[in-house]
């Protein structure tokens, strides 16, 4: 297979990982909202942890995006 075509295909496959990260981030916020609606008084105190969890999930998705970009523009 032509190397350029292989790189672009690989970049497309790597982009699937970004979609999976969307599931992960949605999970973090969904669980937070679920708990917050059950116990609204405790919600504000846990907002910090919400954003830490979001950042961690987002980072892994962004890693997939970086691999995709590396395949298209660098490799």
């Amino acid at each position, binding site marked *: 297979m032509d190397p350029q075509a292989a790189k672009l295909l690989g970049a497309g496959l790597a982009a699937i990982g970004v979609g999976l990260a969307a599931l992960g981030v949605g999970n973090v916020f969904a669980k937070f909202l679920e708990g917050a609606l059950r116990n609204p008084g405790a919600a504000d105190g846990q907002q910090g942890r919400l954003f830490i969890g979001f950042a961690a999930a987002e*980072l892994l998705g962004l890693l997939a995006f970086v691999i995709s970009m590396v395949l298209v*523009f660098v490799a």
Partner: protein
Amino acid sequence: MAGGGTIDPMHQFTVEPLFGRLMIGGYDLSFTNSALWMVITLVALWAFMLGGMKGQMIPGRWQAAVEGFTGFVTNMVDANIGPEGRRFVPLVFSLFMFILLANVLGLLPLGVVPGVHPFTSTSHFTVTGVLAILSFGTVLAVGFAKHKLHFFSLFVPHGTPKIMIPLMFVIELLSFMVRPFSLALRLFVAMTAGHILLKVLAGFVINASNAGIGYGILVGGPSFILMIGISALELLVCAIQAYVFALLTSLYLNDAVNLH
């Protein structure tokens, strides 16, 4: 489709010298557009803080805004590090405000002036890498100054069985060493991805309009509306990424100051 040009979303990130190349001792020290925008960030932050430091007993709106930001960062550092964290508030505040302003200044609508476009200095791994090194370096310096070699007990959590200590130490050490890299990467990719998306959508609008009024409305219209929505989302992401950087710096400092 006739007349479609290729969209180049990466050109907006090129760093180029503004006043000619300046080589000193083999190192390229030219004043670049990246440096210019970092100076603009610094001036904007300085002006913002100066405007709020008049010390009025009943704060006006500007002072209230400055106090809002300082109070926010002080509360965050207090909640995450505890009473010993007070001396880190200037560092965390500087990091937070610089990253926030650098991110937001890259989204300015200067494109309405022909030939002018803003530049996000934090969209380069070199810049965010230095910010991450500042944060991580402080963590290491504080940790070793306060605890000397006992700092390494951070990598062996309470209650690990003796036989697992070597393995746990290596794993925890790896996880610790990835921290500055992840700080830099998170901020850099969040900024770059948003700007690439905006540029691609803008390319759709231009190409669709060039291909005739039909395509212009059918493709260009929704793309333009999407650009408005994504710009709003990008402003939110700017703020969130600055907050996450400052929050994680506070957490890592808590690890260094309070060990467990």
